[in-house]
């Protein structure tokens, strides 16, 4: 059996894809695993495990040809054709496309494998994705939504894989290990703190002065440490600038394999860079992730339990990858003070959970302090350490869990997984609100149940009315009346704390419906959205009742 995994985005995406590679290796031990990655990241091939062959797509080279008037367009054409021919010759039994973009969809179509997962275009130019999880990437892009899943989980479920072990795993090279040994020779007795202060985007890092201050405060708080400032060869100047005024710092310019070995033997990593964070997630080092600019921790946070994430509390975070910071000042980075980062790092080194929670509360207005969690089913979450206990907050986690079950099509299965999911959810909620009395839980859950029951009933009624409307399409006034009522309901739901995500989706469909002249299409779309909301609220109710039972048993 031969399987190709396509990862045609950035380095971080390739590193996250190693989780899928390890699951594929486990599920198909004898299979030949190949990957297709962008040529500029070819060097990562040295540290990717489980793979028999790496193909590279010369994206930069082809783009250069296409953009240059003195190169022939056929040069680009033949380069793609050459690669496609090689891939077709392999005769893959399965292609898993983990790149959610159109280019990868055309490339997957060109490989012409009958069994694909992820975006693929058909000969009619229409695309399909093969899994509700990849559809989710397409449909649910609302940044204000709570229902955001980590890419590793989306890739895992989207690829149709089972198993809970979704760790990122990398290979250590001899050269990398030797480099780390040489770098650390003099500092064997010290706690080794690694700092990756540079990132490929300026808006994803802190100001150099802040780094200097942060390091000095940390050195004062933790005298037994040695700080190493990591950087890629193209970050040499920035690393030197950070080290300039502090003779106790060690600058380390390294490649990926060297970085992996260094991190593997380190005690704490403070990073703004996504790729370095994913490399660290493959080791046991403690990770402190500073999430600024376009860094979206909910999708790409450190995929390991116990990592700490800091994000400035600003409405624009996270911003888009495209372009620079749109604010007059780099607000999300400015909110994160040097002292706070140093104190959090110190708390992590001392494994002082209480200190972290105290800091989370103290800096609540400026910084969101989160801790990562991976449950026994392998699902990742980052939960805030200073959240106020309320039905609204509880609901946001129930909502997310229900969405996962919905994407897993649990409601279509004879035997549901509500119990197991409910137990995981209970544990997560208890981590978020550790000191709440069980009676408080029951009270909030009861209030939530009441609200969700109301919503579920209303949506059910709107679904039934829609069904009866199908037989009365010749009466446009009835349909218009229905739309008015539905809109009123959505506005009411929007005002509640619990159903914003549903009402937003429904309102969007209503808005689209005014532009669509095909009434059957409009009804179809509305029915889809209402059914989705109905199924989801049914799942939520099961989870809420399960949680109530769980907490009541304890009482």
């Amino acid at each position: 059996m031969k399987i190709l995994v396509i990862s045609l985005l950035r380095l971080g995406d390739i590193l996250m894809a190693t989780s899928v590679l390890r699951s594929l290796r486990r599920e198909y031990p004898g299979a030949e695993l190949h990957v297709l990655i962008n040529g500029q990241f070819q060097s990562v091939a040295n540290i990717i495990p489980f793979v028999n062959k790496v193909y590279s797509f010369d994206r930069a080279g082809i783009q250069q040809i296409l953009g240059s008037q003195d190169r022939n367009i056929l040069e680009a054409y033949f380069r793609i054709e050459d690669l496609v021919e090689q891939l077709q010759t392999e005769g893959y039994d399965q292609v898993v496309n983990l790149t959610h973009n159109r280019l990868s969809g055309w490339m997957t179509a060109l490989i012409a494998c009958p069994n694909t997962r992820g975006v693929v275009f058909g000969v009619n130019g229409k695309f399909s994705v093969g899994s509700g999880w990849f559809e989710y990437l397409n449909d649910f892009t609302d940044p204000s939504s709570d229902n955001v899943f980590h890419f590793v989980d989306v890739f895992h479920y989207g690829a149709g894989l089972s198993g809970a072990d979704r760790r990122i795993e990398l290979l250590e090279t001899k050269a990398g290990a030797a480099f780390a040994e040489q770098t650390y020779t003099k500092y064997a007795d010290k706690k080794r703190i690694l700092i990756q202060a540079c990132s490929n985007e300026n808006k994803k890092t802190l100001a150099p002065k802040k780094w200097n201050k942060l390091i000095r405060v940390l050195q004062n708080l933790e005298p037994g440490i040695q700080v190493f400032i990591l950087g890629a060869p193209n970050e040499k100047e920035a690393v030197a600038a950070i080290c300039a005024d502090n003779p106790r710092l060690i600058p380390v310019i390294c490649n990926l394999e060297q970085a992996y070995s260094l991190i593997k033997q380190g005690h704490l990593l403070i990073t703004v860079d996504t790729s370095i964070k994913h490399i660290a997630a493959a080791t046991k080092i403690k990770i402190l992730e500073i999430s600024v600019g376009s860094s979206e921790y909910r999708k790409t946070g450190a995929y390991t339990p116990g990592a700490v994430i800091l994000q400035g509390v600003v409405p624009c975070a996270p911003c888009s990858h495209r372009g620079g910071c749109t604010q007059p000042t780099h607000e999300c980075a400015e909110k994160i003070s040097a002292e706070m980062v140093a104190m959090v790092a110190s708390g992590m080194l001392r494994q002082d959970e209480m200190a972290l929670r105290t800091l989370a509360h103290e800096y609540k207005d400026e910084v969101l302090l989160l801790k990562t969690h991976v449950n026994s089913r392998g699902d990742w979450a980052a939960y805030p350490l200073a959240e106020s206990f309320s039905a609204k907050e509880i609901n946001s986690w129930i909502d997310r869990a229900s969405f996962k079950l919905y994407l897993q099509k649990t409601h279509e299965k004879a035997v549901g997984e509500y119990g197991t999911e409910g137990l995981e959810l209970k544990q997560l909620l208890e981590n978020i609100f550790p000191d709440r009395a069980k009676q408080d839980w029951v009270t909030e859950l009861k209030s939530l149940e009441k609200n969700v029951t109301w919503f579920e009933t209303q949506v059910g009624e709107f679904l039934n009315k829609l069904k009866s409307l199908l037989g009365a399409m010749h009466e446009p006034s009835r349909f218009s009346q229905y739309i008015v009522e539905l809109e009123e309901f959505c506005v009411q739901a929007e005002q509640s704390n619990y159903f914003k995500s549903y009402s937003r989706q429904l309102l969007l469909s209503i808005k689209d419906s005014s532009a669509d002249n095909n009434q059957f299409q409009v009804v179809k779309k509305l029915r889809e959205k209402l059914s989705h909301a109905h199924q989801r609220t049914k799942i939520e109710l099961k989870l809420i009742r399960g949680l109530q039972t769980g907490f009541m048993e304890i009482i």
Partner: protein
Amino acid sequence: MSSMAPLEFLNSKQGWIPVVNGTLLHSSVNPEKEAISFIDAEWSKINSLKSLIVLGVGGGFHIRELLKRKKFHIVIIDSNRELVDAIIEKQPEFLGSAEILAGVPPAQICREPSVIKALSGSYCILRHPASVRVAPFYYTAISQILNQRTLTNLRELSQGNIPLQRFLESLNIASDQILTLPMVEEAMSRRQSEMEKEGLIWMAMRELVL
């Protein structure tokens, strides 16, 4: 064309170095090292390709370096027939390892079977800087022909790739039009037929410039 340019050879420790019109075509100190640096600089661009069209044979140092690294299909185009004859006489092994076109008029270049073969799969045009400096007008004309994006020219260049040629014909675009990716996309949607492999490749190219 510069086929009448005075030609001399300078003997170096590493072999004969042609001097055309008083211009040395390689370093007289270390031509091999110079060739290695030249190919090193281009390597990431060319290492995965099938064919190379090299503009300028020079003293052949860069060709030898290429052949040392990979068995490319190499087509050498040179303006100076006299130089090519002299190089073949001094290094007859070139005849077996590369195809050489000497002094072919630019307008004829696309009809040469070796060029058609090179343009039927992945390729790159490598310009030997000193050779191009000696006969800039000839090589500019050759480059223009090889890089022209009119449909007529693309059809001519793709003679070695029948499915691609058929695809280009199916687009129903005027022959003198300079082909752009949006134009191909639009022409494909006009056809209203299922997309073949060639069409899918053009769509992938389209994504790369969006």
